[in-house]
């Protein structure tokens, strides 16, 4: 099942982990650990829109009653749709290229915060074509991306960009070009995350969902050692949205 069932792989992992821990590696890198909560109160806008009968997205849609009603909410897949960013006090230079996987009717990640000038590489992991385009954007027109192909795009200016796919109407991705974005992290399924910062300083942790900041920002003072702010989680939402009244 998992790596725990494989002794050889376990030992190899332990050896590599020790090597990585004592390697000089990233000079002056500092990890900020934290977690996000309340994401079960968020709703994926594309899925919510798709359940509208007026959009004729299905011929029947019925709840399975053995699944608790509280679970039958279209909350996002936190590991793909929530992006936590550490905002610096001053603008940052463009970062390294970021890979974005296109598959399964969405991109991974769905929301991404980068500094302007950071190149995005969209890799089509589906066995069929995609045709991404930016809404109201001339710099990212619709173009085919074949199976396994990579399409590159760099947001040059600060702002919020929404990308869609002509061949998959439910696919939506939001790119936020934020000049002060120092680093980003995607939480795990339980909401925990780790942000790796290259430089110490005063930062602000902010979660983004569907291209918009959600929850209150969390100030973090980073010095030469790791910081754990899990005790003060980022609260993304405190109550379910109004549209939950409809199943």
């Amino acid at each position, binding site marked *: *099942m*998992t790596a725990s069932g494989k002794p050889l792989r376990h030992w190899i992992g332990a050896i590599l982990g020790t090597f990585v821990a004592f390697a000089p590696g990233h000079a002056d890198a500092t990890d900020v650990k934290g977690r996000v909560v309340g994401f079960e109160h968020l709703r994926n806008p594309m899925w919510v829109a798709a359940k509208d009968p007026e959009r004729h*997205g*299905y*011929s029947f849609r019925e709840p*399975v009653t053995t699944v608790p009603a509280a679970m039958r909410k*279209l909350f996002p897949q936190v590991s793909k749709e929530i992006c936590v960013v550490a905002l610096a006090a001053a603008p940052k230079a463009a970062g390294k290229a970021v890979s974005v996987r296109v598959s399964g009717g969405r991109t991974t990640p769905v929301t991404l915060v980068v500094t302007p000038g950071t190149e995005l590489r969209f890799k089509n992991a*589906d*066995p069929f074509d995609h045709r991404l385009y930016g809404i109201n954007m001339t710099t990212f027109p619709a173009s085919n991306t074949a199976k396994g192909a990579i399409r590159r795009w760099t947001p040059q200016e600060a702002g919020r960009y929404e990308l869609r796919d002509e061949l998959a109407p*439910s696919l939506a991705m939001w790119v936020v070009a934020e000049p002060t974005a120092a680093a980003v992290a995607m939480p795990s399924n339980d909401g925990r995350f780790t942000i790796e910062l290259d430089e110490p300083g005063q930062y602000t942790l902010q979660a983004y969902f569907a291209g918009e900041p959600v929850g209150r920002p969390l100030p973090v003072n980073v010095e030469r050692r790791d910081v754990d702010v899990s005790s003060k989680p980022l609260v993304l939402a405190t109550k379910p949205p109004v549209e939950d009244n409809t199943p």
Partner: protein
Amino acid sequence: MIASRFWFGVLGLALAFAVLVLELAVSMHDRLGMRMVSEGLLADSRVVSWYLRNEAREDAAQLIRFAANDSVARALASASRATDPSEIDGATRRQLKATLSKIAAEMPKADSFDAIFAVAQSGEVLAHIGFDQAINSPDFELGGYPVVADALHGYVRDDTLMFDRLYRVVARPVEFELGQLPAGAIVGAHVIDDAFAAELAERTSAAVAFYAAGKRLAAGMPSGVDHEGLDQLVTDLPSLDGDQSYKDKGRSEVHELADGMAVVYARLPGEAWQLGAGYAVARQGYKIAGLTGVLSRADSKDKDAVNTLRLVAIALGAIGIGLLLSFWEYNSPLGRFRRQVKALSGGQATRFAAERLRAPFRQLGLDLNLALDRIARAGGGDEAPISIGFEQMFGDATAQPSMSAFGVPPSAPPSAANPVEASPMPGSAQAQPASPPRRPPRAAAQPAAPAPIAPVSIAPDPPLDPAFTASYSGGTVVGLGSFSSGAGGDGGYPNGSNAADTAGAGSGVSTTADEGVNGAREVDPEWTQVYQDFVRIKQDCGEAVEGFTFERFTQTLRKNRDTLMREHGVQHVQFSAYVKQGRAALKAKPVRQ
């Protein structure tokens, strides 16, 4: 002739009415046919929609076989607990795939899916069968699609997705622990291809085609229905952009394609709706397409329904009526003529009553009356009139009496200042035309005085037709007058009288011949006979003779005689009266000596 013409008119109206009824029938048939086809198409479209929905529900029920399998649920639960999909080992994936294959193999073929996907809570596809395109795509997932997301959140529903092809998809959650979030989802898919369409067509008895992005993807026809008609869909698909019903309701109005094919389009439910994917049901419209189509499209049952006996009776009746009318029109005037001939031969009558005869026989009657008169004048001789072959000399003038010298003067009463002119001819009533001087007997011709001639109004002379043939038959012409250019001579008079004698027979005041003795104009003595013949024919023809004077008559003859003599270099011109087209007319014949 009137009756047959009327009958022809009746037949023409009947034919036009028959064509009218036929065209109305064709139009009504086509309209009602299209209405029936439209209603049938709408029913077909709804049936296909219900079929798709019902099929999706049945598919969702069939997915329970997978979702309720403990091995499947356990594998998905363990995979969902992994923090990273890469932590899921290959053995788990292979075991899950084997389980899926085993369950699928146990399903009835009619209920089987083309592809099955086992999806972890994170959206990753843990195992799949029937979708070989994704074998080499380790990162393949489905979690972003609303149908899968719904299943991962506790819903069962269907969708239509466009992958490499069009798929009808149904998904339901897989639960491992009650009261918890589903461990994953199981997704079943049917490829919408020709096999899918053919099965749908057989079950719904509807000709159906699926399309997307302006292309026809699949088509299925019930048994015995032509497949080629649906190929026209591609050319008609752009017209859906202007179909408001299609945009609003997802189902179009009836579209008529070529060759009478009618189509109703409907959108497919699901994400494919936004991609313009849909299905079309088609039926062959029953259009006659014009009058000739009535004959070409009639089958044996239609032909058996025709009452042949009635058609034959109508045709024979129409023919019989036509023949009857023709027979009656031919024999009725002939019978009248025959009766008059019998009366004439039996002595009950001396002349033909031409006014009682119809047009062709009336002319015959007039000609025979003239012939009888000439024979009587010739003393019963057997000399027959000779046709001289000249054009009518004054025919047109008789057709226009107000302009003719032989017509009735419009307003020229006899002059009161000239008592001679006003005096009637001897032996004639005041209202009768002035009679010309009777031709005197051969012995007493010289002292005979011409009758006084009533004055006439001056009208333009009738035109003289210059066309004539100079050939002369050489025979004696009964009733013909002749004129010699040599005044006073006798060579020009067959009967031996001379012009001076004849002129002297007039009143001495207004005779019409050339200037002769005592200043009177000479008159050819035979002109008197021509005048009498002419007046009699006019009376026989029912023409008015009031004011038709001998003086004016001779003036016109003289002018025409002179013209003919001058133009043709002859010394004699013979005139004769005859009937032309039911009216009195004159002929002129130059005679070379």
